[in-house]
């Protein structure tokens, strides 16, 4: 996708609901996965010959496995309440990015093959056969959904388009039509242990480098241990935390927190990734394989607790799925949540007076917080509903004197996705990512103009990467995106508790 093709949104005071712009994003397609990649994941290498039959058979199989899928395909009343809720529609006007229209791509075929109405009165109920064009639309539009579940929140029946897009992707993979980006990431995670493909030697190098920098900067010897058996805590961070900006500042923050708390910890080279892109594929098998690395690492390293780093979808995979997919976790210390979020960990220390924080260290910033959609709508925190909103804010307030929330319609459970989740964080989808980011940036611009906000904190690796990439395109400063634990890192008074 050439740079000049990008439609750069104008950011104004309000977020208008766009008029329908048919096919606005129809040409923005993910790259298909190459044959070797498909093969390595156990999927057919190219579109199989009898793909129509196979796809319908797979759909039938999934309909028997997931109540959510069948129910959600059945009960939508086309009320239209969700039509203006998806950030990809709001940023583009492409009607197939309205959640119900996105669902309909699958629903039309479902009706044709699995319902009486679709068999006997297809035109009446909008049942359609699975043609090549339809399959191509699936590939396009199910890879323009970040599975953020904003639509589910606003639907009177909780209809969750993420469930449907996961099923669609699973069907497509099963007939040889995988998406390059997500499949590559899953394979890297299987083969090397993390999404970015950082091998153990490099991981050790990076962590040693961070230790040296920290010592130089603070004069204190702060550890970032790798594979240290017998540590109390296994920290599973998104691999971007070892690699990218501003993510790595978050890692430094975790290290300082552990240091000051005096709790021994380690990262694992076997499970050097919190994320679970297999979730985006909808594949239970691959999700199981990715999740099991964490279990294996925890057992091998004989840790007592598992703490997850700042990563949105990883927190969903951990909080909501880990227990189901590779539990029970009865070998860990039951006195702590399993798994625990790094924010829960830090908040707990703050509450017990275990951290010395000086918020004036962040006085050069006025901070707002982007609720990442996966923690917001697909997980919890702190053991009470809404903990995922209160805890990060409470940490930020402990570390910063100036904190401002964005417009109440666009935060907490109503938050927008950053536009890069769900396997969309790839270059060829840039127009989709810009469209998806627009509503969030609009809300951000508002508090920048009205309240002098200078920085936006996030607890998601993808959000951080996505915003860092998109902000320059709308003439905003990419450095304004910060890791939440970067704020902690700035504020923490090392030595104060020694």
């Amino acid at each position, binding site marked *: 996708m050439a740079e000049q093709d990008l439609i750069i949104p104008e950011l104004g005071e309000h977020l208008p609901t766009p008029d*329908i712009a048919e096919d606005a994003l129809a040409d923005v397609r993910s790259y298909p996965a190459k044959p070797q990649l498909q093969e390595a994941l156990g999927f057919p290498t190219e579109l199989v010959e009898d793909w129509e039959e196979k796809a319908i058979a797979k759909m039938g199989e999934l309909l028997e*496995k997931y109540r959510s899928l069948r129910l959600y395909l059945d*009960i939508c009343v086309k009320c239209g309440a969700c039509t203006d809720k998806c950030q990809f529609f709001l940023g583009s006007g492409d009607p197939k990015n309205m959640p119900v229209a996105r669902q309909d791509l699958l629903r039309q075929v479902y009706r044709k093959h699995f319902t009486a109405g679709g068999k006997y009165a297809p035109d009446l109920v909008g049942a359609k056969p699975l043609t090549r064009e339809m399959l191509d639309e699936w590939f396009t539009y199910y890879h323009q959904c970040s599975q953020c*579940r904003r639509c589910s929140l*606003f639907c009177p029946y*909780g209809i969750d388009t993420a469930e449907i897009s996961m099923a669609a992707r699973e069907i497509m993979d099963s007939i040889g039509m995988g998406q390059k980006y997500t499949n590559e990431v899953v394979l890297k995670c299987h083969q090397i242990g993390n999404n970015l493909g950082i091998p153990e030697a490099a991981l050790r190098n990076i962590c040693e480098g961070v230790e040296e920098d920290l010592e130089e900067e603070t004069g204190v010897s702060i550890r970032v241990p790798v594979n240290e058996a017998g540590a109390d805590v296994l920290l599973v961070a998104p691999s971007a935390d070892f690699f990218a900006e501003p993510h790595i500042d978050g890692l430094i923050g975790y290290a300082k927190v552990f240091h000051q708390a005096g709790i021994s910890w380690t990262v694992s080279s076997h499970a050097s990734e919190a994320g679970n892109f297999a979730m985006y594929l909808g594949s239970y098998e691959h999700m199981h394989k990715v999740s099991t690395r964490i279990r294996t690492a925890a057992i091998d390293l004989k840790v007592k607790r598992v703490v997850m780093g700042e990563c949105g979808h990883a927190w969903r995979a951990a909080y909501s799925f880990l227990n*189901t997919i*590779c539990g029970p976790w009865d070998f860990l210390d039951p006195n702590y949540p399993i798994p625990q979020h790094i924010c829960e960990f830090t908040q707990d220390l703050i509450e017990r007076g275990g951290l010395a924080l000086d918020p004036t260290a962040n006085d050069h910033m006025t901070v707002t917080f982007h609720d990442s959609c996966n923690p917001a*709508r697909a997980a919890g925190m702190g053991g009470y509903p809404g903990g995922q909103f209160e805890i990060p804010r409470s940490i930020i307030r402990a570390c910063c004197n100036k904190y401002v929330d964005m417009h109440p319609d666009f935060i907490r459970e109503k938050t927008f996705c950053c536009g890069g989740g769900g396997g969309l964080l790839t270059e060829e989808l840039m127009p989709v990512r810009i469209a998806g980011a627009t509503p969030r940036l609009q809300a951000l611009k508002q508090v920048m103009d009205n309240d002098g906000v200078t920085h936006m904190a996030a607890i998601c690796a993808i959000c951080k990467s996505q915003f860092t990439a998109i902000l320059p395109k709308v003439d905003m400063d990419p450095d304004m995106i910060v890791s939440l634990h970067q704020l902690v890192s700035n504020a923490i008074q090392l030595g104060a508790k020694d």
Partner: protein
Amino acid sequence: MTFLTVVYAILFYVATIVLIGGLAYRVWSYFKLPVPLKVFTAPAPRTRSGAALRVAREIVFFESLFLSNKWIWIFSALFHASLLVVLITHLRYFMEPVWGWVALIQPIEPYASLAMVAGLGGLWVRRLFEPRTRYVSGVSDHLMLALLIAIALAGLAMKFVSHTDIIMVKAFYLGLMRFDWQPLPADFFLLVHLLLVAVLMIVLPFSKLLHLPGVFFSPAINQADDARERRQLASWNAAFDALREK
């Protein structure tokens, strides 16, 4: 016994069987489908009773819809609430003696019918003229609204246009229930009203009107947020558990 009476009697037996059998089958089929993962839409209540309350709030107040779109909420709340009233007042055709409170609210029936038409009309206007909703509407979505409005209008016509002998109608239904058929008055509006009601009863289990029992089963709404405390299991977990080395 007129031919008409026989036709309508059979029609209503068939419609009742289809409705009850169809709904029971759908409910049973949803019930037995696995829910292999925790997929509540957060923030969700922490306990199962809390989640049940959330389902109840969705059913009684259309909570999410209120959050989502006030116009749709107003029209559909108006429609559903008045439908409920009308269904209750219609109970009088199926019981003798009539429960006191049912008889008591009977005078509001015409108003409820009008409110029903207003709600449905509002929904239809949105469907026709709001571009996004129009885009996602299929033929059947319009037909459903037409059907419901026609039922209500035919019902109102019996009250305001040409009066029907409702004592006879009641005898007809009580007769159906006791397998002792009684004649049905051959009034135009009554026949239209009843025919359309039978059609509605027959299509209901096969259509989107299924959202009725569906609400109870939506995991986004009915699951408690206890993912870390309670392992959500499906029949295939054991096979996966056996796969791992540790």
